[in-house]
């Protein structure tokens, strides 16, 4: 099948590539662009490990073709750190609050939480849990993930977060 030309912005860089139409966005990111932060977990649109930010939306990149993302502005976990190389508040929150154990879900969790905080800078615990309901974690029981996101929300708003990890 003839390849299609796609161009998009990925983590702030312009990308021009040829792809087969059937290439899924997750395969394009991981295998063609070598961005292996987004993970393939379930491969069936359930687990959210492949979540990337696309034009202001959190999307599961296992359920989208790369050609559909033509012209899009995409951010993956590789694009989360601050310009000076320091960790984004969410990355810091996951470290400080022990928001990960095996780490497999973490790139999707952080990218999803990023969009959640863009839309709601001061979410309640319930809003955080509902907001990350498309991301599965089999290790943590979510307690410390919620705290990590609360830590980041507090830091981004300039107020200290006083709770400790469990």
């Amino acid at each position: 099948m003839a390849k299609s030309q796609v161009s998009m912005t990925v983590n702030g860089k312009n990308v021009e590539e040829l792809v087969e139409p059937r290439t899924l966005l997750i395969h394009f990111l991981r295998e063609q662009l070598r961005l292996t932060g987004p993970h393939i977990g379930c491969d069936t649109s359930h687990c959210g490990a492949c979540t990337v930010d696309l034009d202001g939306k959190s999307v599961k990149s296992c359920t989208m073709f790369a050609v559909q993302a033509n012209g899009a502005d995409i951010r993956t976990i590789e694009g989360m750190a601050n310009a000076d190389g320091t960790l984004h508040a969410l990355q810091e929150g996951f470290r400080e609050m022990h928001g990960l154990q095996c780490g497999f879900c973490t790139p999707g969790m952080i990218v999803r939480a990023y969009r959640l905080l863009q839309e709601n800078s001061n979410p309640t615990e319930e809003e955080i849990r509902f907001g990350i309901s498309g991301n599965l974690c089999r290790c943590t029981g979510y307690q410390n993930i919620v705290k990590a996101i609360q830590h980041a929300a507090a830091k981004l708003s300039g107020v200290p977060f006083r709770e400790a990890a469990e």
Partner: protein
Amino acid sequence: MIPGAFAYHRPSSVKEAVGLLSQFGDDARAIAGGHSLIPMMKLRLAAPGHLVDIGGVAELKGIREDGRDIVIGATTTQHELIGSDLLAKKIPILRETSLLIADPQVRYVGTLGGNVANGDPGNDMPAVMMCLNATYHATGKSGERRIAAREFYQGAYFTALEPGEIVTAIRIPVPAAGHGHAYEKLKRKIGDYATAAAAVVLTTSGGKVASCSIGLTNVAETPLWAEEAARILTGSTLDAASVKKAVAAAEAITSPASDARGPATYRTKMAGVMLARALASAKARAGA
């Protein structure tokens, strides 16, 4: 999982999209959010040779008022339905239902048109559209026609849509101001289809039900419009005896499959429970 190979088309108008679909016939499928079709393609349960991506067709987007109706473009996403102030004010059951569909990521891309047109009995919007007496605008090679939601669903994945036709918009008559509404959905977890669900829209006058409409999700091969149950309740005060009779009438028209969500008898009973809850919730909201 890697889907079969296909040629990709991205038309910029409905006319162009419909032309491509009729040109390639059975070998073509329309794609919008893709969250029903792409999983099927990954499993090779679907292997279209041509994908017609209607995501770039501007005329399929947006929510607008048209006289006493609200018209929603087919590629409007569930996320956009949730964020619409107009819908929150005029047809709040759409926001309530949208929040019960799948998960945030899926709602950012899943479209109303795809949800209603796919004919999947597990989808939530079809029963809501039957409840609201919505009409679907469908366009094919020979032009546009309108199909009532209540006449659209013929079997699991079988609808009144002809080959080469696409749903372009959903037209909903705005329910009376002060109406009560509810969508009650029993599911095992976030992202699950309903074990059973019920949609209710009603109006009250002097403590009695003046009008009532009921839809049921995932308890038959098609969504169900529970006309007899609604008729029983009209004129009642939603007293226990009337609700019991209406629940029995609603249960009587179900024919769910026994599956991982439970045996058929359980799912029928849950449809009744969801209806009773939706009625109570709708009544409490009516007149507000």
